[in-house]
């Protein structure tokens, strides 16, 4: 019994990262209506970011977020100016297609670049408190992963406030809802797109940092994270960042539960069944509007 509870808890902890990874993608998809399949590669770059910040500056890996997030924000702006800004000029159907093409090209290029620069080996960061755990009754919680969950939740909360209160946050939401109406009320929707993409990339960078701290990073983690994020986006639906986060937690727990009850090799099958059932019952997602 306590073994199962322990596994579910670990699922919940990784689920927080699924949620954070999905939040950035959900923002980009919801606002720009483009599908950035290179999102996982951006997470991977964030993961290498923390490896380098820790190695070069000797910072605590959690403090490295303060450097990785602004850098990711900048990377997002550059990618928007260089690539995705061209995509949003087209109508919605063409946008999805062209963003898929550019995303695949980008994913391919970033993956190859990472292998060339940093080899295909897995890397991680070691902290003095790496082995520390918190014990609650029979459960042991790895401190690092617990801290990651808390930070992920704080970032999602911050994003929620940003979108709810900040002037440009409202502009971003208005653009997501109806870009034509937003344009008519005088919102510069290009800037809203730029901000959404930059913030989405920054969230990817943050997610990558936490993934590296709690687990490890290698050039090939990108696709897996893109897929987890996409599954959460569909499960949760668009329109609510907190809903996306909860969707991430649900996926983490569901995977852990199915691995525990059906054995490791079949964990994804249960995920598949849940996914199909949700699609049939609620095509707009659990928390979609």
């Amino acid at each position, binding site marked *: 019994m306590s073994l199962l509870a322990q596994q579910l808890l670990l699922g919940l902890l990784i689920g927080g990262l699924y949620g954070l990874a999905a939040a950035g993608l959900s923002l980009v998809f919801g606002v720009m209506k483009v599908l950035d399949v290179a999102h996982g590669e951006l997470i991977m770059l964030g993961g290498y970011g923390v490896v380098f910040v820790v190695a070069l500056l000797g910072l605590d890996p959690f403090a490295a977020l303060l450097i990785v997030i602004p850098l990711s924000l900048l990377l997002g702006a550059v990618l928007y100016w260089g690539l995705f800004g061209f995509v949003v000029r087209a109508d919605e159907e063409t946008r999805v297609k062209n963003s898929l093409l550019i995303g695949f090209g980008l994913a391919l290029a970033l993956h190859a670049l990472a292998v060339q620069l940093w080899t295909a080996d897995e890397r991680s960061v070691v902290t003095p408190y790496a082995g520390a755990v918190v014990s609650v009754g029979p459960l042991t919680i790895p401190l690092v992963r617990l801290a990651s969950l808390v930070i992920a939740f704080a970032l999602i909360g911050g994003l929620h406030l940003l979108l709810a209160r900040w002037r440009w946050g409202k502009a971003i939401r208005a653009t997501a809802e109806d870009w034509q109406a937003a344009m008519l009320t005088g919102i510069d929707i290009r800037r809203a797109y730029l901000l959404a993409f930059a913030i989405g990339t920054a969230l990817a960078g943050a997610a990558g940092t936490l993934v590296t701290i709690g687990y490890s990073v290698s050039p090939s983690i990108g696709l897996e994270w893109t897929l987890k994020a996409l599954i959460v986006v569909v499960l949760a639906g668009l329109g609510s960042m907190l809903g996306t986060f909860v969707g991430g937690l649900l996926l983490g727990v569901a995977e852990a539960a199915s691995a525990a009850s059906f054995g490791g090799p079949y964990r994804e099958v249960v995920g598949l069944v849940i*996914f199909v059932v949700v699609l049939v019952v609620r*095509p707009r997602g659990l928390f979609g509007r």
Partner: protein
Amino acid sequence: MTGRRERAWAAAILIALALLTALPRLIPRDSVINFVFLILLSITLAQSWNIVAGYAGQVNLGHAAFFGLGALVARTLWIGGRPIVTAMVAGAVVAVLFALLIGVAAFRLRGAYFAIGTLALGEILRTTVNNVLPEISTLPAATIATYSLTRRYYLALALAAVSVVAVTALAGSRLGLGMRAIREDEEAAEATGVGALRLKLTALALSTGLAGLAGGLFAFYHISYYPAHPFGPQWTFDALLMTFIGGVGTLHGPVLGAVLYVALKEYVALHWVDFHLLIFGALFIAIVLLLPGGLVQAAERVRRLRWG
């Protein structure tokens, strides 16, 4: 796109394929035969994806799942002693049945959601096959001893011809017309009496059936591979890239796209060994930005400029 021009393209492509039957006698070099084999397999794969994405307008990102299922079933039956064509057909049937099962749920999703949903489904299937069948699949020594590349080549040639004929027949039929109506505006199509779900399922069945056959060809061609490999998302991406580079929803686009894509990939891989994926990725982004509608549309534009 007028029917006449489409039929002319079909004839031209089929003549080119017919001429390729002489290749093993004219240039009996394995490297050349392998290269053309790869192009032919790619044509089939791209054309199969084109049916559901180009004609019915449903961007299926889980296409590799059906290629993989075809490979898995065909390989198992063939190594078990069945003739390869029977095994390939069985693989295609399994792929179609799985597609219909999944399709009923997945077609509740529209546009980008359908793309995401199918990508996730394909990837879940790949992971599961990888977990359940982690061992590499190698042909028995007796089969390797009698391995004939020419047989594979002719089968690939026949399959590419089948895919071109299938799409030509579809494009000219009532069925194809209904699919295009859904692609342009699903609500309007429904309102005029087109059964959208039924047609989308038909498109998916045709598309995945061809993909399953292509998977069977893959299983017949390779001496050893991991069973999860043909389920890999790169097969979906390849089909998608070739179709988009050529021109989605046209008969000749995927064929031209496949030829260009395979040639480009091989060239880059040969000349920049270390950086080939990086260069290929960058090149590919450049093509998308410069030719957003693919080769076919670019050619149309040039033609219109010339004739005013």
